[in-house]
């Protein structure tokens, strides 16, 4: 359902998180997790959220995706409030979360099952196209159990892409993969997501890997210890493709680290 998306001027706000608070109750004791978190993500922006482990990064991502309700504050996507999961926001998970009893193709089509506007054949077409884009041609009829970790995550990305999302949320998408596989997938992912032929307008990724963030993100939002607030934002103004060995790269890594500690 991509509406006139291409016309959005660069810098238009796509996601707006405003004053989000989250309090859990454990044995009636309030346990604040997020304290007044605000951030934005604009057209063609790749935003990374990071922070100490257990600070609530993933919870924040779930709130943006409408999976968890915030205690206070609002999340807006394209000027409408997010009140629950919706079709224009999608998610890629740390642990892939594929149905082991369905093939790659069926897993991708599963994400399209709520789309009443598409026929079965159209869904199949779409799913095949997404699998092709993520480099899984020829693996349509393979079950996840027979795929390597990297390929499983490719199915995860294909599943997310197939739904024509405007906002792509990624929860530590590379952290279950071994270094080499993660490296390869990272190299492809930016081009794959941020390009005019996809519906994706903005990507928000949770990560604890600072080098990964500097390699991929346009902006790093650093959260503090629990209860988390935004400790600082770093606009990573490094031209692409980024050279991970250059001194500039390390200067940015240091900048993000400085906020983390």
């Amino acid at each position, binding site marked *: 359902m991509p509406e006139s998306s291409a016309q959005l001027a660069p810098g238009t706000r796509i996601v707006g998180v405003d004053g989000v608070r989250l309090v859990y109750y454990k044995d009636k004791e309030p346990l604040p997790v997020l304290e007044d978190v605000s951030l934005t993500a604009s057209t063609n922006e790749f935003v990374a959220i990071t922070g100490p482990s257990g600070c609530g990064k993933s919870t924040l991502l779930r709130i943006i*995706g409408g*999976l968890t309700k915030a205690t206070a504050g609002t999340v807006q996507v394209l000027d409408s409030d997010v009140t629950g999961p919706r079709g224009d926001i999608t998610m890629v998970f740390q642990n892939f979360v594929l149905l082991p009893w369905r093939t790659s193709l069926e897993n991708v089509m599963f994400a399209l099952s*709520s789309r009443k506007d598409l026929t079965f054949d159209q869904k199949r077409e779409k799913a095949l196209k997404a699998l092709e884009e993520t480099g899984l041609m020829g693996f349509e009829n393979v079950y996840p159990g027979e795929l390597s970790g990297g390929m499983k995550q490719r199915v995860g990305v294909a599943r997310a892409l197939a739904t024509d999302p405007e906002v792509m949320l990624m929860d530590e998408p590379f952290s279950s993969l071994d270094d080499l596989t993660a490296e390869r997938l990272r190299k492809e992912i930016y081009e794959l997501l941020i390009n005019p032929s996809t519906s994706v307008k903005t990507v928000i990724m949770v990560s604890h890997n600072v080098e990964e963030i500097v390699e991929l993100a346009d902006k790093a939002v650093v959260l503090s210890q629990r209860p988390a607030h935004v400790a600082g934002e770093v606009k990573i103004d490094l031209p692409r493709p980024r050279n991970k060995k250059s001194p500039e790269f390390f200067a940015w890594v240091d900048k993000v680290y400085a906020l983390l500690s």
Partner: protein
Amino acid sequence: MMLALGLSIVFALAVGITAARSRRAEGVILPLLDIFQSIPILGFFPLVIGVIYGVIPNVIGANLAVIALIFTSMSWNIAFGVYEAVKAIPQDYADLLNMSNASGWQRTRSLYIPASLSRIAYNTQTSWAVGLFFLVASEIITLGKHAIPVGYGIGIGATQFLANGDFADYTALIVALILVVVVWRFVFLREFALWSEKYKMMEEPREIHNDPIMKFYSWVNQRSISKLFLLAQGRGVTRFTSTISRFRRGIKYAVGIFLGILLLFVAGTLLARGGLSSVTIPSLAQVVSDEGWVLLNLGVSFIRVWYVYGICVLIGLPLGIVISLNFKLYDIVSPILEVISSIPAPILLPAIVLIPVLGGLPEAVAAIVIMLAIIWYIIFNVMAGVRTLPADIKELPRVFQVGRLRAWRDVYIPGALTGFVTGSITAIGGAWNALIIAEYFNPNGGTPLTETGLGIGRVIVQSTNTSSPDYTTFALAILSMTVLIVAFNLTVWRRVYHHVTKRYTYNR
């Protein structure tokens, strides 16, 4: 009951440790344990009674027979637990003992027994439920001319009260039973289990050891017959590697066991008849005609087991899924289900018969008794299966706003499938046992309360429950039933189980 439990534990320790320590013993003991827990032990009860009562024809003998039966029903499962626990001891510990030159007994005392404790505790919880079933069953089965005077017992009490129309007493008795069950299971066994926690070698996910249903699940999982044939010679339970060789071995042991049973049976017959008089060897023609009759009844029972199972699936599968998807519901409902499930079904039989509508429908009564005995396996295993699914997977339909029907079809039902199949295997096993009581129930030698038209359980009970027991029919019935069950396990269940664990198990 306590005596039987104590005996079971000692037996289990001996057998389990032997099997785990010696490769040769392992090759013999494991398949034996497997077969023994997959055949309906209740069917052998008349035989056991015959042997023991033949030797000690008084109250003590009768009680010994009952204890022997309960022991038989409980020990296999505990023995499996011990075996697996000892197998799972890390090599480092064994090396430590090797280096200190520990003797066999020292090893047993300082390593094997402590290492098995938590598994014993945990398997005892469910063995107890099984044992209770057999306790009641054995007390209310009366065997014709040996109107066996067990003395006192809850099964006896229940039937007598009802026979006298003493509903108040009967109700009081059931309430007392529930109380005892609750106290025993939730206080004593739980304490034992908690105490044995510190002997655990490995960490388990928290959720699992605080949750009775999850415990039940891993118990059933490890007990289920199909696993029996999946037990590899290596360490612990692994997937079977060569189907064909294993199949052959299974058959070989099965045949050996039948021969053993036959021998036992002959011995039992001799003893029961006081070793005297004519041991007539039946003519071939008679065997053939008896076998025809037995097969007909077996067929009817087979259908009965499966249609009751079908009803249990229709109720248990959706119920289990719904309950475990809702955390609040799960917390409230699971302890209640646990208590209900630990009431042995046979004790309710006298009451069920009195429900006016059912009184005239022996088929319905039989079906209800079987259902009460087995539906828990399905519900609990489905519940545990859904609970073990990662939260992410359960949330997937929400993330992609998938409709309810689709979510059930693509996520919940496939997700519950492994647990469902494990539960089904155990349930069908339990159904054959319950059958023996359900198909022919005749307390105090009066008119039978249930008497289905045809059925193997009826044949088994009736052939021995007269003044002139028909041992030929009895032997044929037991053997045919055992062959059917073991063959079915080896062919159908094993394949289904293998397929399901391969495709429908969630691992990252």
